[in-house]
């Protein structure tokens, strides 16, 4: 008799280039994340990091014998936007990571939020990453810069994707939001 495959539950980790998506997944995944990184050739982008995700990253957390949580990281560069569409399908929720030290990426983050809100109106949390760095904008300022109004119901949380407790907090915030929508 063939073994029954666990059911997949999907959360999408989106965000602009170099926001820390791969690191976020790596911090909590129970498996070594599967990545599709390629070396960066653009000199401007190379200043920030040497490789980038071109299709997706994924990490996995086993919930029980029948269910697994998959964390799918989207590519950050806008030329790979078509992957957002593919990865967003069937997602339980979305976490949009923002590099709090780099305001020039804030507008791109808002574009990503707009994309997911219009295509997949599932619960969404913004994680203002790199709060451990000295020039990080506060989560409150990031929220204003992203034009997130209270009515939108998008919580913004400050995190460092290197810190497991912070990543857990962001995931739990999203799951609580999902719970509210289920019970509300």
């Amino acid at each position, binding site marked *: 008799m063939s073994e029954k495959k666990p059911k997949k*539950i999907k959360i999408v980790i989106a965000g602009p280039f170099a926001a820390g998506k791969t690191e976020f997944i790596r911090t*909590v995944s129970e498996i070594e994340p599967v990545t599709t990184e390629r070396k960066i050739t653009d000199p401007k982008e190379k200043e920030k990091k040497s490789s980038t995700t071109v299709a997706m990253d994924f990490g996995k*957390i*086993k*919930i*029980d014998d029948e*269910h697994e*949580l998959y964390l799918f990281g989207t590519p950050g560069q806008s030329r790979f936007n078509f992957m957002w569409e593919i990865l967003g399908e*069937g997602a*339980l*929720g979305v976490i949009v990571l923002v590099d709090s030290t*780099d*305001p*020039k990426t*804030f*507008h*791109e983050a*808002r*574009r990503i939020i*707009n994309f997911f*809100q*219009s295509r*997949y*109106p*599932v*619960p969404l949390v913004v994680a203002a990453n790199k709060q451990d760095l000295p*020039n990080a*904008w*506060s989560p*409150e*300022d990031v929220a*204003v*810069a992203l*034009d997130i*109004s209270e*009515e*939108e*119901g998008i919580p913004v949380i400050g995190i460092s994707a290197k810190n*497991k407790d912070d990543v*857990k907090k962001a*995931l*739990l915030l999203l*799951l*609580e939001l*999902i*719970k509210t*929508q*289920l*019970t509300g």
Partner: protein
Amino acid sequence: MTLTGDLKSFSFADILQVLHADKKSGVLIVEWKDMTVAYYIKDGELVLARPVDKVFRIYVDRDFEKLLEKLRLRESSLAETVKKFFLSRLDNREGIFSFTQGFIRYPETVPVFYPAEYLIMESARRLTLEETERKISDELLVFEKAPDYEEKVRKARLTDEEQKVLNLIDGKNTVKDILEKSGLDKLTLYRTLYGLLSIGAIRRKRKKAPKKPSISLDLLAKLIEKIKKL
């Protein structure tokens, strides 16, 4: 707390939006190639603009009233400094900015000649189409007026064209609809929407009601417990 960035990717409209929303007080320094200007911000309002030859000079004068005495500025001339060193420099995007919160001791009241809403709209009027598309990223976006929009647009002193756009914002018209109904060019419309959004007079309207999550409560509870134990 410090907010830093460059004007090419984060315009004056964006900076003032953040400072004004939270009614921050402090000093915003912009370093251009030809000059450095200190902008004194009290409760989110720009009250004085002052060019400096060296950045450290800003940190020498922490008392705002004493600074005005030193500069021999009367309150009535504060507006002139904003005109000369802020409004006239809106087209120059080669600057790097940093905002330091607190630090300056302001008196309880300082006159505001140019409200933040006005300065934000003025900044938005200078944006390129590419820059406006950072916020107005989709022709199908729908905006609605904020509950307190009247006071905000009064301070912003809208032009007739901008007023026309505002009148068409009703929570139903898409950006594309407004473009067709107003007869305005795309750049004017996008600049107006950008400005109105930045001053908080309008906000995005969610197109769809949130989808009911496709997970049972039991499984969700298991998932939450699992994440907690990681």
